[in-house]
């Protein structure tokens, strides 16, 4: 095939080896964590410096060429799915920790730095980076910033945006901006806050300043087993109502437990339909006092059994079961979709009842593992893509769940972003004028609509559906989904 002239100009712009155009090389970038979709880009740019990223974006602006920034491609909503006829700019080689300042408790990192690498670098100083998506061994800070990634500690510590103090970015217009800085306080409108969660629609983050927190001295991790999912939900509500502020509050249902047992030999109290995981953390004296209150609450919660992690290894085992649960459930089925809608916490029981009712009616299996503390559901909808109509039924159930979240006054996404997957639902959560406002903001950052087009906002042309299944990294056992 003849090289299109725009590619020749792109090849001429950047040093040799930075632009991938051959089919086998491009194949690796066709999809992300939402494996049901696949698109081949025109080329993939692999910059090694911030200046090369800036040059590539300015080139796209001059040529009106669509581009998709990419970290590790673990987005579960199709955020990093390429655009046909556009390029992918992959940021994995921009992976320097520019500065780590333990006295100020901040780190300045390039976007390709992997999430857990930040905590690893901070550890010798007794510090850590709080946002902990289960994909943290591979996902990048740039991807986290674009998607405002969450994790298991959001009720107490917030999401990525609560930990980003400043950033440098090249916008889709080619303008290079610096927002915020090293201070935890700021002055004037919160530009940094506006940038975080833009889903790659504003431009590319080049350097990110994050705050680091002292690592908690003590953890107290409890696993409580219940005969019904509702009892587990009630237990979580009781803990929250008591005035305790646990670091994490999670629930797994029967199907999720079964899968975790099969996959990582997790061990749960027999005869349980659900378990709740509660983790207290803080100075040892505070935790010692709080755990007495927690024990009192759990004793009255109708638990079949309450297990306390006696040491770091037992704590890790509890979390391993929890964090591996989703990919474990995924192994029970060839294909699956993960949703991450949010409902008000007090309506969790009702939401779960509805989901299991629909799941029975429609004959679509659905497992639940979720952040109960902040009402963030994670229904995992199982289907077999080879079966005619199965994907459609799964998507129907997913749609019902999203609409329920909106009706209950919640959100269609707590942490995975809108992406391609939920773009049709955003106008159900927001009115026409709000959508217009969001589009105008987008147009301010990207008047040509070249940065990650087709994401977040509904569009006529649907991306190509293809094969399904576990993310390649999940198949390899590197990460698991939450």
């Amino acid at each position, binding site marked *: 095939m003849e090289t299109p002239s725009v590619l020749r100009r792109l090849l001429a712009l950047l040093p040799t080896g930075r632009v991938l155009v051959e089919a086998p090389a491009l194949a690796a970038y066709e999809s992300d964590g939402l494996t049901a979709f696949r698109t081949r880009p025109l080329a993939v740019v692999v910059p090694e410096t911030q200046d090369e990223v800036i040059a590539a974006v300015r080139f796209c602006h001059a040529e009106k060429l669509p581009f998709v920034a990419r970290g590790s491609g673990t987005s579960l909503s199709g955020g990093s799915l390429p655009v046909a006829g556009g390029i992918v700019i992959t940021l994995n080689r921009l992976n320097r920790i520019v500065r780590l300042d333990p006295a100020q408790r901040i780190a300045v990192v390039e976007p390709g730095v992997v999430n857990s690498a930040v905590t690893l670098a901070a550890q010798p100083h*007794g510090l850590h980076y709080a946002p902990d998506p289960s994909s943290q061994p591979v996902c990048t800070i740039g991807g986290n910033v674009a998607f405002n990634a969450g994790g298991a500690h959001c009720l107490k510590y917030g999401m990525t945006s609560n930990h980003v103090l400043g950033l440098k970015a090249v916008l889709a217009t080619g303008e290079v901006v610096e927002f915020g800085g090293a201070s935890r306080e700021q*002055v004037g*409108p919160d530009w940094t806050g506006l940038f975080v969660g833009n889903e790659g629609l504003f431009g590319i983050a080049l350097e990110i300043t994050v705050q680091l927190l002292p690592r908690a001295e003590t953890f107290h991790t409890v696993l409580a087993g219940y005969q019904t999912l509702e009892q587990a939900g009630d237990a979580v509500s009781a803990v929250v109502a008591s005035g305790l502020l646990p670091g994490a509050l999670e629930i797994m249902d029967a199907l999720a437990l079964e899968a975790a047992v099969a996959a990582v030999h997790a061990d749960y109290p027999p005869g349980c339909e659900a378990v709740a995981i509660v983790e207290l953390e803080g100075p040892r004296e505070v935790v010692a006092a709080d755990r007495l209150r927690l024990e009192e609450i759990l004793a009255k919660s109708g638990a079949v059994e309450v297990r306390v992690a006696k040491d770091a290894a037992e704590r890790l085992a509890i979390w391993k079961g929890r964090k591996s649960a989703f990919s474990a459930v995924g192994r029970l089925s060839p294909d699956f979709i993960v949703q991450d809608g949010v409902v008000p916490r007090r309506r969790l029981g009702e939401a779960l009842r509805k989901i299991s009712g629909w799941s029975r009616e429609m004959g679509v299996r659905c497992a639940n593992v979720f952040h109960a503390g902040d009402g963030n559901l994670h229904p995992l909808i199982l289907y077999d893509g080879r079966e005619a109509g199965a994907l459609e039924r799964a998507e129907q159930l997913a749609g019902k769940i999203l609409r329920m979240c909106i009706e209950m006054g*919640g959100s269609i996404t707590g942490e995975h972003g809108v992406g391609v997957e939920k773009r049709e639902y955003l106008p159900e959560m927001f009115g026409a004028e709000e959508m217009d406002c969001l589009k*105008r903001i987008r147009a301010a950052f990207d008047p040509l609509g070249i940065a990650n087009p087709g994401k977040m906002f509904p569009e006529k042309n649907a991306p190509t559906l293809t094969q399904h299944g576990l993310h390649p990294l999940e198949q390899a056992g590197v990460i698991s989904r939450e």
Partner: protein
Amino acid sequence: MLSPGSISNLVECVRSAPRVIAIGAGTKPRLSRVATDVVRLSTLKLSGIVEYEPSEFTFTALAGTPLRDIAAALAEKGQYLPFDPMLAEAGATLGGTVAAGLSGPGRFRFGGLRDFILGVRFVDGEGRLLRLGGKVVKNAAGFDLPKFFVGSAGRFGALAEISFKVFPRAVTALTLRIEAGDAVAVGRILAEAANTRWELDALEAVPAERAVMTRLVGPAAAIEVLAKEILGRWPGAVLGEAEAAAFWRGTAEFAWAHPGGTLVKVAVTPADVPALLSLPAAHVRVSAGGNAGYVSLPGGAALPELRWPAVTLRGEAPLWPGAKPRFEIMRAVKSSLDPRSRFPNLDE
């Protein structure tokens, strides 16, 4: 001055004039001191808590609701806004607090106002009533306009209603006064105390007295042990209850600042503290473990040059007297929300 008494009335008021700005109780008057042709919209009648769900840790209130009322309603359920909103006794409103982007000493532990705001309803420059963000504690749908409004000084829209996340409040607290010796020691103690196992709730400095003030909250038996440990490391004392309450009240109300003078907030880092403390002729307070500074000058005194981002809350100084990055995107976002500059521009 117009005083809308309902949200629909607020929309009408915004539409009624070519140039408007919303004003709360006027406790940060410099933010709204703009040209006289700009019509003032008082939010004081736009007051009340619309929704409060203690079990959800969330509430929604009208923009003109006094912080005082909110704190009282939350306290009844053992909850609070962890960033310790400022100037509550002076009558500050929720909307004015968002527009000023002001957080108090408690921001040290769990973050500032920006970390607790969940959603906004506001009237944009075209007079449209828009709702962005959400009402639940976790939400990643759409761009984060609620955060953008924090510190935006009423320049992008008129806030009508705001949703926040809240936390349960610990029943006991202890306040410690640490004697630092000199300015360098103040900076050092701030940095060191912040990275410990203690999980301090607040960390402030009173440079005039060469003192660092800190607060512990939690179970009484636990924080007493932690207090002893802290006082084993640095000389100081636990304050009596009344004295502690007076200190935190005085901090929240800027009781230490020159009355009628200039009051400026600066965004700094702990490393900047010695330079901040050497500003000529100024009273300075350091907040948030060395991340916020407040500079006070008597009326008529000129503000020294500031090399940090800064905003003037009261007095004659320019609105943004410090470092002031300006990018083309800032103008573009302004015109997307307010194409005809119905609200003043950032630099007006």
